[in-house]
């Protein structure tokens, strides 16, 4: 075990290397590039014995991963934004074919206008593709989640996307504790996978699913991701026992007696916690809930945490134009629909296209949540920091 300074991107690359991946197929895109640069360096200098396939696009990158995964190989890819969008159709194939691919998605805004900076629009657009989605708040978590992702993927036979905020995490150096490689190998040992193609076993893959069978096959993916919850929890616990860090589905901060809360996802959770500390000193009963596992959505955990709270702000970092709200808010409102003790919910959008969300803006969001509770009903979505 050693404590080093690493960027979020390098933390992911080290995790993939320590998990001893067999194959990497990826196409570079800002801000994901340093992940694949580091991994190709590991392969080139012999530190990692793996196939590195240089592909001409993200569509091909994920296609290569699907093919390799079907042979039972442990595969890894990484992308961002337009790259993820370009993978769109293959994402659904990866989940439908039940390939345990692990992908790091370095969250970046989607064009147009062209923007390389951070928001969550890329991953939100792929929310329904049947991938498990983990979201991290630090470089350490990026490392840890990537390791957990391999184990989760191979246990439940679904692809896992680890989301880390572009630049805010991907290009920020901070302390990361790297465990001994032998411990990592114990945690993610090579796993022989059933129903994988090889010269000895001929299967037909990528077949037509006519109306008589498509529905049942799609439901298998629905069932698999629904039932992955207990496995994800179990693996997270095992990770905690082995490495001393456990993350759960949601991370709660100062929620025991909170009257007002903010729900966040990703790195900006940290700033929200700093603001909670400051407001607590002023006597405000505020807390933060950060969603770590977005798919499968942690319905029960969220209901348990948010029931009885007076007001909850939901901070979206992506928009759902023309929709009834924005994506995270929609999910939380749905989860709380059946509760008789549901809090008043207020939707916020903040930090699109890499716009900094300041301490003052977080304070303002908490203040607005308090206001809408006083007013007795939520306002339509508030776009924080938007110039008129």
């Amino acid at each position: 075990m050693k404590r080093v300074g690493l960027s979020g991107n390098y933390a992911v690359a080290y995790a993939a290397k320590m998990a001893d991946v067999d194959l990497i197929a990826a196409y570079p895109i800002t801000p994901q590039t340093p992940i694949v640069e580091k991994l190709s360096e590991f392969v080139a200098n012999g530190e990692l014995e793996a196939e590195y396939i240089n592909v001409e696009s993200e569509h091909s990158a994920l296609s290569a991963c699907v093919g390799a995964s079907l042979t039972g190989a442990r595969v890894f890819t990484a992308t961002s934004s337009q790259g993820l969008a370009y993978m769109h159709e293959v994402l659904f194939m990866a989940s439908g074919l039940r390939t345990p691919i692990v992908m790091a998605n370095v969250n970046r805004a989607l064009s147009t206008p062209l923007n390389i900076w951070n928001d969550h629009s890329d991953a939100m657009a792929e929310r329904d593709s049947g991938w498990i989605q983990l979201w991290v708040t630090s470089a350490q978590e990026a490392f840890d989640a990537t390791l957990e992702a391999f184990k989760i993927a191979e246990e439940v036979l679904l692809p896992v996307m680890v989301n880390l905020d572009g630049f805010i995490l991907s290009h920020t150096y901070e302390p990361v504790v790297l465990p001994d490689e032998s411990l990592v190998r114990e945690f993610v040992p090579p796993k022989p996978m059933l129903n994988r193609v090889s010269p000895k076993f001929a299967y037909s893959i990528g077949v037509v699913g006519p109306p008589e069978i498509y529905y049942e096959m799609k439901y298998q993916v629905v069932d698999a991701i629904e039932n992955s919850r207990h496995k994800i929890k179990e693996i997270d616990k095992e990770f905690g026992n082995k490495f001393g860090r456990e993350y759960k589905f949601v991370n709660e901060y100062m929620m025991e007696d909170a009257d007002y809360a903010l729900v966040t996802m990703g790195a900006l959770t940290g700033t929200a916690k700093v603001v909670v500390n400051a407001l607590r000193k002023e006597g405000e009963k505020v807390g933060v809930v950060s969603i770590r596992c977005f798919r499968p959505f942690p319905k029960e955990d969220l209901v348990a945490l948010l029931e009885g709270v007076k007001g909850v702000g939901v901070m979206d970092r992506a928009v759902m134009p023309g929709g009834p709200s924005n994506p995270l808010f929609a999910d939380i409102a749905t989860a709380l629909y059946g509760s008789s003790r549901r809090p008043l919910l207020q939707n916020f959008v903040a930090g699109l296209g890499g716009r900094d969300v300041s301490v003052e803006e977080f304070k303002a969001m908490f203040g607005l949540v308090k206001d809408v509770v006083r007013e007795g009903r939520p306002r339509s979505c508030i776009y924080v920091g938007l110039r008129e």
Partner: protein
Amino acid sequence: MRKLKGWKEIPIGAMIVEPGSSVEFEVSSWRTFKPVFDKKKCTKCGMCWIFCPEGAINLNKDGTYDVNLSFCKGCGICQRACAVKAITMVKEG
């Protein structure tokens, strides 16, 4: 009509796990004409084998070709593909 399998009974990942399951699908009753091969004219070029959409053409030990009538639907593509007219479509029965 046979009972279709439920979602729990179907292999996951949209895979057909029994190799060669197409053997179950006999198409001989679809036929009106059947191909008859003239071994003397055959130049062993293999075009009939390549073009057959059902994979019903077999390679003989001597390099000529023949048809497995269980899987021949009588489409006549092999006859069209044969450059030396070694295949004739003959009415069944």
